């Protein structure tokens, strides 16, 4: 079985217990406007072009069989609708400015990478984390990886939006030791406005998880995006919701950051929050105390 992989990163310490290898899968059902990994959203390979690395040598222009790369006002521009992702320009690029993201891999390929750090998992209690994008967009593939990891004694973790049908989610959860799930906003309308989808399915799924997997450690991640998700009302409602789910649920606050902005440019996509600044640390601390007053444990990384 094959899946589409964005990237595999080793020695991660913020995505579950211990030292972990994070497998980023391509494809996500949501389109959060603050998303920091836009290259993970689509379920197909894409060409990225980082202009700050480009030395404007023009080798890519000559290499393109479709003549889809042109020089305009001293800038290299790719006519994306002409591009067939043949990769010829990437091969010729000297500076690493051009790159195709999204690589087909078999479950075995993924496992081979994951197993490289076994010695670190056993010394730290770590393992594999499936992230993305969202593993829920490739449920069969994800479940197969998780199953194989579990057979080999590798601790498993997934990071998902939980937007999808319960069947798909349950397939993965059957082989999952640790779960991260997001609640971006408690209000279904605002959720739809900011992410493109209503949150009804998500909340329903989370409730189901609390019933079906009462022992699964779950961290509910809440992005703190100033002016979008960080109002007290939203935070209070999320805290209330999570407090009713069980002792195995915690909340992690993820302060908005801008580290993904250049990826939008690389994909020739607009970034809508260009002027938004990260929330002050004090604000996060206030929210943390506020949530804790509802009896929910809060993690900050």
């Amino acid at each position, binding site marked *: 079985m094959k899946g589409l992989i964005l990237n595999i*990163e*080793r*020695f*991660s*310490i*913020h*995505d579950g217990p*211990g*030292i972990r290898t*994070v497998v980023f899968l391509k494809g996500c059902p949501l389109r959060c406007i603050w998303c920091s990994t836009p290259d993970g959203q689509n379920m197909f390979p894409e060409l990225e072009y980082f202009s700050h690395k480009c030395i404007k040598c023009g*080798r890519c222009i000559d290499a393109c069989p479709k003549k889809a790369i042109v020089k305009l006002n001293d800038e290299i521009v790719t006519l994306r609708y002409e591009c067939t992702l043949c990769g010829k320009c990437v091969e*010729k*690029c*000297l*500076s690493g400015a051009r790159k195709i993201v999204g690589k087909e891999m078999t479950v075995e390929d993924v496992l081979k990478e994951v197993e*490289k*750090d076994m*010695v*670190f998992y*056993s*010394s*730290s*209690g*770590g393992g594999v984390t499936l992230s993305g994008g969202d593993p829920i967009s490739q449920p069969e593939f994800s479940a197969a990886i998780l199953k194989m990891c579990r057979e080999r004694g590798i601790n498993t973790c997934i990071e998902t939006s939980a937007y999808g049908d319960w069947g798909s989610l349950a397939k993965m959860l059957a082989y999952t030791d640790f779960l991260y799930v997001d609640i971006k906003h408690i209000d279904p309308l605002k959720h739809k406005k900011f992410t493109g989808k209503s949150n009804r399915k998500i909340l329903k799924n989370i409730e189901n998880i609390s019933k079906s997997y009462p022992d699964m450690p779950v961290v509910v991640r809440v992005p703190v995006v100033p002016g979008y998700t960080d109002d007290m009302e939203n935070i209070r409602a999320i805290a209330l919701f999570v407090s009713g789910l069980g002792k195995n649920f915690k909340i992690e606050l993820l302060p908005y950051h801008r580290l993904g902005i250049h990826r939008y440019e690389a994909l020739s996509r607009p970034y809508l929050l260009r002027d938004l600044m990260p929330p002050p640390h004090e604000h996060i601390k206030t929210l943390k105390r506020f949530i804790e007053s509802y009896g929910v444990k809060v993690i900050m*990384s």
Partner: protein
Amino acid sequence: MFPRIELAIKRLRETKPSVCLEKAKIMTEVFMQTEGEPLVIRRAKAFREICRRKTIFINDGELIVGHPASKVNAAALDPDVKYWVLSEELDTIHLRDTDQFLITNEQKKLFKEFIEPYWRDKSFWDTFISCAPEDLRQLVEAGVLILTNGRETPNHGLLAPNYELIIREGVNSVRERIERKLASLDLSIPGNYEKWVYLKALLIVCEGIVELAKRYALLAREKAEVEKDPQRREELEKIAEICAHVPANPARNFWEALQSLWFYHVCLQIDYNDSSNNPGRVDQYLYPYYKRDIEEGRLTKEQALELIECLFVKFNEIMYLSDKAYKIVAGRARFQSINVGGITKNGGDGVNELTYLMIEAMKELKLPEPHFGIKYNKRRNPDLLLIKAAELVMLGTGHPQFFNDEAGIKYLMGWGIPFEDAYNWSVNSCKDLTLMGKIGGPRIPASINLGSAVELVLTNGMLRKTGSRLPVPQTGDPRNFKTFEDFKKALKRQLAYLIKKAAELANMVETIQEEKYPYLVASLSFEDCIENARDCMAGGAKYNIAGEISSVGHADLINSVIAVKKLIYDEKRITWEQLLEALDKNFEGYEDIQALCLTAPKYGNDVPEIDEIAADVIQFLCQETKKYSGRYGGKRVFAGAAAAVHIYAGSCVGALPSGRKAWTPLSDGISPMQGTDVNGPTAVLKDASKCCLDVFYAPLLNMKLDPSLFRSEKGIQSFVSFMKAWADLGIYHIQFNVVSPEVLREAQVRPEKYRDLMVRVSGYCTYFVDLPKEIQDEIISRTTHRLS
């Protein structure tokens, strides 16, 4: 911070390093008066005379006293080893880019009129140049073979004398031991006269040591008499009492033990202004004194910490007069290695309260010396050791370096040393292994430049830097290598030849060492040296391990071989013609070929394609090295190079198929090529572990970590787990630089703001701003591992 320590650090910072010619003057006088006497007697007499006449001083506030030269931060010139430093730089040594030394006009005059005329043509380097076979000389000048210690003596310290013996028994008891041995010598037996002379020389050295301490006792008493501050007066009286007792007699308490250790260290430094005298496992042999004092209520933990800090500061006051031409120890590194942790004689956990106090002291001082190593034994040492070590790592001073205790024991047992000795190994200089008072020298006589080896295959025996042909096998024009096997065969032929030459070089310099540079002060504490009446540089020690053949450019070699295999033979993306042309032009105008070379798989990323070739080449090197024996028996071992040899070595090597440009530094130890390890720190450890075969001796691994790792509890836990995996993987050594590249770049621009920024260059810590720009750039270019 303790006020007296603050004062001492201020003194260190404010005193400009200077040259001291007292030793050179006295030694010259004594040598003039003793022409015709045996060398060991002349050296011993010179040593005793220096002890009698050198300037001595006690600094304000200090509790541990003694210095090998005439003032703080002064470096004594060893005229017999390196008078030429001043011959070459008499008028410019104070103007060097780095490692400057002040020198007065009076000193210049003394040097020119008295010291230089006597010693001219008598140094190790002079002997080497005048006696070396022509081809060896050429290979050394070309940087293909490297005298690991440059133009200095091949040993260069690199010993761990038995400080503990001096502390426990005292010099008087050593003297009695020598006298007993002398009395037992039957001079009618051939060879015994030599021994008699040697032991006589040791007796003279003992006198020198004892007299020096007595002078300090007198000075302390004099100072006490005029001291106005009653507390300081009491301290000075105490110092006088201590110096009157040690190191002649056994230390009676913790303070005396530290002072005794220090006196011995000072005497070793008087004997040779070496960069590496190694006190070894201080937390083990000082613990009984600490424990007894604490139990009997004579000492508090706080007082112990203050004394330890007083001792540690002193290591920084010693200066080493470096050779400008040979940048292996740029940044005033002195390699005085101390170790904590490890196991006890019975195989139990060696970590004790002193271990933690010493880590604490290193945290407070943030100074480059002593060279602080933690011997971590995963099976015995507690996690707390790693947590405390993490607190030190995160300060970004480059301390500590970590050594895998079990790997070290395995190396020594592989040499036939039984566990009862092997367990007690300590670090020699920057990363080598030794046994206190049991392993003699010289240890690192010769190195081979693996980058040059590749170059010589590509050029069919020509040195790119000069365009001249070297006396090495011509392995054929690479354009005629039909298969990858042909290339590999040529490479192996060249490597085998260079190893043989390195063994020749080692033999030669070891002989010079033995003949000209006995280590009398060090040999005093080698019980077997007294028993055998033979110097520790002449096979007198209990174990006389064959000097290693070190290597530099490990990753450059592997990456170059892989690039050739992949680009020319497997994928046929370029021809030999194209590659050779690009290399010849240092990739200028051939950026696409360089880019292609850089895309070939690189060592340090845990990609399986490399493993087989890397293992093949390393095993070949180790096997070849083993064919050669050491001067005192045993087989030579193939080792990773130490210190900053990779920078000098790189300056001798043109562009390589790995994508590395000409004259830039080679990779250091078994670290990946700078900036090419992109799969994170775990991948680096995995690849390093593949090199840590039992046969590849003591390789060194540097890694830079982003400081953010240490900002959370989870980060520290992860570091602890990371280190446990490191131990599991059997890697011998690792050390970390914890500074962000942004900070380093800023420090380049504004050095005045970053005076105290310390980094680990390669096997040693130093102030970043003290380093030449090329080395600074190199540090920045090493990949910083961020956490995702």
